[in-house]
């Protein structure tokens, strides 16, 4: 009955350990760890691993945690889901959805991921991002394609590209698409989330656009920068008068129920069911009176899960994972002849405090993965433990298989602003 909606969904680049670790401190109702546009192609594998570790190790508090995977068309979605499903995110967001089949494909991937990792079947939700004309036109069917679907989101940048139009300030050109998404969401009783506002320094513009989103009927909005979260939250939070009025109605209604009455009067007005439902919604979105939670958070059960590391065969060649950005660690691994054991070299400005801890983590990961002989150098930029473990795992997996042998350092801001368009 009452829905605790997600007012704000904050996107963070999935290959940045510090952003992945800090995503929850800005007060967004959901955090979305991104594997799509903010992650360069050659870092997809290490980003997936980082996200899997983060899901089990980082405390996201009351925020829901989702992962935006790559689109089905990219061919990377199944690898994405296989890896991150093990970390049991609350939801995955699928970009550029155009058909029900695409949803079903991810549904199946999630189902096998859940069963392989002893996760309750059907407990990972899906939010479909519609950002093409075909996607928008199929919105109603997509919304009903799977029981996992809890919301539709709009992606304006790609939509404009496929329409061959420029985005304007007032957004007239997006109205039909937005209204369609909201209508289809309402008709199928799921949520609708509006696209990101890309100018991160324009606070006034964000406020105007977010108010418009709420007016159109969206339940929340995606955020591309942490500083956007307070504005979005406040616009999608009913003000005090609204809350007070809703409280009065709900109290009267519940009192009436106690007395066996179905309809009651408040201030001379008859309160019937739609009014009560609306009041519950107001309180739900204000964070009050939470009786049923439509958007699950697995936070409690998730954080108790141990990160399971895959066993690998022999190291085939040298490889590297991670970057030299603050909060990251670059792990370089080279095979050495059998019997020489594990040689671990650590360079870190916080070595006096964490040198031993870093070495122990690297050793534990290598041992659990079955690596017996290797030379490892760790160039640490004060990374947290989960990041060191994830980077070590990524380096080992790169050293035992084909694929990329290192991460590129892109400017996270640059990739963000040009890309993340749910």
């Amino acid at each position, binding site marked *: 009955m009452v829905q605790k909606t997600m007012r704000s969904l904050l996107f963070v680049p999935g290959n940045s350990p510090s952003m992945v*670790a800090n995503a929850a401190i800005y*007060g967004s109702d959901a955090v979305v760890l991104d594997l799509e546009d903010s992650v360069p192609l050659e870092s997809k594998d290490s980003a997936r691993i980082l996200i899997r570790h983060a899901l089990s190790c980082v*405390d996201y508090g009351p925020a829901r945690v989702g992962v935006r995977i790559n689109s089905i068309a990219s061919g990377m979605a199944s690898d994405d889901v296989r890896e991150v499903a093990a970390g049991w995110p609350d939801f995955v967001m699928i970009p550029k959805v155009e058909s029900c089949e695409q949803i079903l494909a991810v549904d199946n991937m999630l189902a096998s991921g859940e069963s392989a990792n002893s996760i309750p079947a059907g407990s990972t939700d899906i939010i479909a991002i519609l950002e093409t004309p075909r996607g928008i036109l199929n919105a109603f069917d997509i919304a009903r394609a799977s029981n996992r679907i809890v919301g539709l989101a709009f992606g304006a940048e790609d939509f404009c590209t496929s329409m061959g139009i420029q985005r304007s300030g007032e957004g007239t050109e997006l109205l039909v698409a937005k209204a369609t998404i909201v209508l289809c969401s309402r008709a199928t009783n799921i949520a609708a989330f509006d696209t990101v506002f890309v100018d991160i320094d324009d606070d006034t513009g964000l406020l105007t656009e977010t108010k418009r989103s709420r007016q159109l009927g969206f339940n929340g909005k995606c955020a591309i920068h*942490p500083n956007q979260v307070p504005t979005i939250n406040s616009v999608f939070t009913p003000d005090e008068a609204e809350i007070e009025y809703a409280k009065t109605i709900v109290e009267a209604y519940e009192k009436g129920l106690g007395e066996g009455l179905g309809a009651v009067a408040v201030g001379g007005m008859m309160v019937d069911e739609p009014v009560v439902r609306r009041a519950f919604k107001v309180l739900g979105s204000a964070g009050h009176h939470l009786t049923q939670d439509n958007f699950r958070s697995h936070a409690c059960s998730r954080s108790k899960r141990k990160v399971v590391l895959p066993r690998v065969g022999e190291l085939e060649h040298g490889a590297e994972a991670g970057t030299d950005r603050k909060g990251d660690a670059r792990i370089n691994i080279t095979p050495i002849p059998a019997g020489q054991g594990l040689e671990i070299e650590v360079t870190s400005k916080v070595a*006096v*405090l*964490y040198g031993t*801890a870093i070495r122990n983590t690297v050793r534990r990961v290598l041992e659990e993965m079955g690596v017996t002989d290797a030379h490892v150098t760790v160039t640490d930029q*004060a990374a947290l433990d989960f990041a060191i473990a994830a980077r070590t795992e990524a380096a080992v997996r790169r050293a035992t298989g084909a694929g990329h042998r290192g991460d590129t350092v892109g400017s996270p801001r640059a990739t963000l602003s040009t890309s993340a368009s749910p």
Partner: protein
Amino acid sequence: MTNAVGRDIPDSCVILGETRKLQPYRGPFAREPNVVTRTTFPRFVRPGATKLVGSLREAIEKTDLKSGMTISFHHHFRFGDVVVDTVLRELARLGIRDLTLTVSGFHPVTEILCDCIREGVVTRIHHGGIPRELGNLVARCILKEPVVIRTHGGRARAIGAGELPIDVAFVAAPACDAYGNVNGTDGPSPCGALGYAMVDARHAKRVVVLTNNLVPYPLHRISIPQTHVDYIVATDCIGDPTWIASGAIRQTRNPRDMVIADQIAQVVQHSGFLKPGFSLQVGTGGVSLAATSRISDIMRHGGIQGGFMLGGITSVAVDLLKEGLFHSLLDVQSFDQGAARSLTETKEHVEIDASFYANPHSGGCAVNMVDVAVLSALEVDVDFNVNVLTGFDGVMMAGPGGHSDTAAGSKLAIIGIPLVRDRLPCVVKRIGTVVTPGETVDVVVTEYGVAVNPRRADLLKALEGSSLRLCDIQELARKAEDITGTPEQLRFTDHIVALVEYRDGTIIDVVRKPEA
């Protein structure tokens, strides 16, 4: 012996060449002044005599500056300062050695300074803060005596009480007339208020002014009067005023800082202090400036006109004065050109000296009149004690400035600090060095929650009505360590590299040399 914040303090220490008995810190207001030492010096200037001298060397010779003496400088040019270097170079050339150097705050650490320390020209340092480069050098134990760290108020007190006698004070003067009247606001390189230099000049045995702007007698706006000045040297450059906004001052859009600033503003809003006449002191860090902006939004929204703002003054404060949100600024140091300009243009923008600002043993200092102080920190412990001096590796990298003074004087002292910096937990069981005692700190604000000092039950009650996430400080420390993992304990040798003097002259902590 153990002091009131649980730190082990030696009984005595050699300071300025003599063994002094150290008094352990006993509480923020436990020590009253008991010394009566004459700290202003008689001078004799005949009619017709000139104070202008041809060169710095001549001025130094005239002051009778000799090896073993104490020289002082002010830090109003911050990282644009050149006078410390100029004077040290000349002193080294003259073969003068074994000097005690006291600078009121941060200044550039140059090769010249480092050489002077390595070669024994400077053998003692009594500073307000130690930048990391200097901290690294000092940690190698190459000074004759431990560094003495003092707060702005504590330094003014020590100078006035004769505990830090200055033989020669050097003053970089943006404007000076031929008889030695000085201000910091006129001429081509204004640094604004001269609050720290004013105290040094008042109590030093001899005062040498270096100026690039000699003006006709008399100068109109006088910060340091002719009665304190002995010699004047005309020079090309006294410092680069574009650098006065360097060092501590940061404007921010950093999202974590914004989260912290937002909560600080909410603490202030619900504290009960935000009412007409409300007075505010803020630091110059990103969090403080962002918090100022949020607090002023609330004042505007609620139609609240504040009283004064105190401390280092930025153009952010000047704008609030002009807008009418505050009616006065008390300025001990101007932090940018906008503030320096405003000091001459606005009568409500008042220059004060360091003693007026924060000296606990004066007839009343301005920090006592502050309602709310927003301060930063490197670390806070579970007793609310604050470290603003040593880094994670035990090496000095910052300094108290007015931190302890303002915390002690204000009615509500708020520390804004990230719970974790990179992998360093900032709310911890035990901090490296205690600089500001927890007894004077009321609230710690982090991005994960707000901890109120249990001494302030009134405040806790007031904040319960807000939407702030209130938590026990122990919980914050646990949370920090959950995120970072438990760091190893640093190990220290017995060698003391610095004494940390509380503002009243007692010793609140010492800095020991870390084990290699």
